[in-house]
């Protein structure tokens, strides 16, 4: 065991934790906004796939990971428009539309990938890194200061979303759209508009999460590569209850547990990554049992809003 416990190995475990956390962080942050606005976005993984595919294609063609990540955001927004049109505007069942988005994106990205890259499977190089001089040289922990630049953007987004929720009228309106949409409507605020913005932002963040996975982590897009991450992100968002710092903690805990499980395997201690993958779902079940659905999730979650109806 000792022979592989080098500083490089420990640093790799930390890097692995960040690698596994970031897609979840972006997607769960987006889902938090959507859920707080009253829209359960089960199509999150579909948006991640769209972002992953578009991000990879544009990063490959342009040679720039930034262009790829921007494309991932735009792809996520484009897919989330389906949710906006069908669920927010037309009031169709959010669960059905979300699942349809997931299936559609699984099929579409798989098909497009086969047509374009089925014979070549190109791979990207390393994404743009941001190294902080001095700090990056700290043994083991220095890896925290030598990460893809988008990681720091993710941390900044946590602060920004937290601030919006706590300190701005817009954040208050989002939460009111999920908890008391009729009251919000009575106050003269357009609930549909608030939910539309929330879902589009969710699409952008989910797309970025998928883009991170394809462009920054794997350096390649393969069909179905999100591998259930969208659903784990939904569960993290449920556990976070609208608090962005909890999204950060939940994502990091999950990624760290996964990376530690990898590390333990390498030193000969068996910890199944599948148990780690299962943990968020166990936690959310426990939370729902302990706190009860009504007090735990937004009261108007999954309920279409129509003016004049109560």
């Amino acid at each position, binding site marked *: 065991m000792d022979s592989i416990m080098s500083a490089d190995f420990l640093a790799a475990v930390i890097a692995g934790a960040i690698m596994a956390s970031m897609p979840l962080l972006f997607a769960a942050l987006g889902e938090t906004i959507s859920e707080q606005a009253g829209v359960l976005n089960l199509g999150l993984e579909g948006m991640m796939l769209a972002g992953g595919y578009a991000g990879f294609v544009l990063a490959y063609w342009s040679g720039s990971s930034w262009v790829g990540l921007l494309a991932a955001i735009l792809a996520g927004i484009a897919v989330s428009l389906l949710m906006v049109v069908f669920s927010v505007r037309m009031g169709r069942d959010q669960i059905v539309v979300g699942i349809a988005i997931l299936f559609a994106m699984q099929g579409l990205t798989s098909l497009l990938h086969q047509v374009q890259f089925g014979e070549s*499977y190109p791979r990207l190089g390393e994404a743009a890194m941001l190294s902080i001089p001095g700090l990056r040289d700290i043994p083991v922990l220095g890896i925290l200061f030598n990460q893809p630049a988008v990681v720091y953007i993710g941390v900044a987004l946590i602060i920004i979303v937290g601030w919006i929720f706590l300190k701005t009228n817009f954040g208050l309106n989002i939460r009111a759209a999920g908890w008391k949409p009729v009251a919000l409507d009575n106050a003269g605020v357009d609930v549909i508009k608030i939910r539309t913005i929330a879902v589009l932002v969710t699409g952008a963040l989910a797309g970025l999460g998928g883009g991170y996975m394809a462009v920054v982590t794997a350096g390649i897009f393969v069909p179905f590569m999100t591998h259930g991450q969208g659903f784990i992100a939904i569960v993290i968002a449920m556990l976070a209850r609208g608090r962005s710092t909890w999204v950060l903690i939940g994502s990091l805990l999950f990624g760290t547990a996964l990376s530690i499980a990898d590390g333990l395997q390498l030193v000969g201690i068996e910890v199944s990554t599948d148990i780690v993958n299962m943990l968020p779902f166990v936690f959310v079940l426990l939370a729902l049992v302990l706190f009860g659905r009504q007090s735990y999730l937004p009261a108007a979650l999954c309920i279409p809003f129509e003016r004049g109806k109560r």
Partner: protein
Amino acid sequence: MKSTESFRLSRSSIAIMVLAVMLTLVAGCGRTEDAGTDASPASGSGGIEVTKVAVVTPEKANDFGWNQMGVEGVKAAAEAVGAEVIVQDGAGYGDITPIMNQLATEEPQLIFAWASGYNAVGPSMAQQLGIAVTSADPGDESVNQPQLVQAIEEHAEKGAYLAGILAARMTQTGTVGIVASADDLNWAKMGGGYIAGARSINPDIKILYVQIGQAGYADAAGAKRVTTSAISGGADIIFGFGDGSSFGMMQAVETAKAPAGADKVYFIDVIGDKSSLDEKNIYLSSVVWDFSQLNTEIIESLEAGTFGQESAYLDLDNGLKLLQTDLIPDDIWAEIETAKQSIIDGSIEVPLTVSAKEVKDLIAAGE
């Protein structure tokens, strides 16, 4: 009013779902090809004349892996015996009963059901349709039924033994890695063979084993993460078992900083040959599963009336091989060839491990 709204809701919901499912299905549509010639072999005693065969694979046949090797193997075999081929790739891992029924209308004499996930449906459909089918990796001789069901297995561990020799000769750090995408019978077989091969060269070689998950076949991001960890643990040769996840492993090998004591990290692949995709000279080799000869033998056995009497094995003398690349020095390749002959003549016996646990136990036993 309420009932009208409910009807409208369900109608639009159904429309959305249908659209989504159609997109999913479009990604998995198959194709029919005529790779045959005019000649048809004569049928033997108790056998049947084979003029048309079909192959069903769960994923598209351009994955540089199991699906591609399967379809290419069936095409080559059909060409060898002068039969037509129907290719139905991307059929998914679910119930293929409708697909089998559809194929039956094309009247093939043999269907290669190219996934272990089809092993329940395949033999059952063979009974119903009266068409011979193959069963992929059932791990059980009793699956065989004369002229109806033929089990196909692989002695993958023997190819992996050769890969182990290669890794032990090429490593600069004295540490090699195994990255498995799943807890899979063939991955376990190859893990054990690889360990035995590596230790036959260097009994003290350090072997790291890491698994992405129970079924991380397509988890490219997870593959990148665990492969990077294995490299940082000192492994400079990665033996990777995956499908789509293999590309994540390759990307990790391409971008990783070589561990202390090594100039470079190399990748050894399984099943297919991705050397044409290697732009950074990291693709050291692959344990290739070429089913052309074995599938030809299977078709011929159906014609001879010996189909389904015992399991057919892919082995070092009929298509299982270690891929030779320019990165392998001649003297090491000569050593590998010698070992190959020794395995074929039985002077080297390769251990068989059938689970990830047995692989890990084997690693621990040598430490």
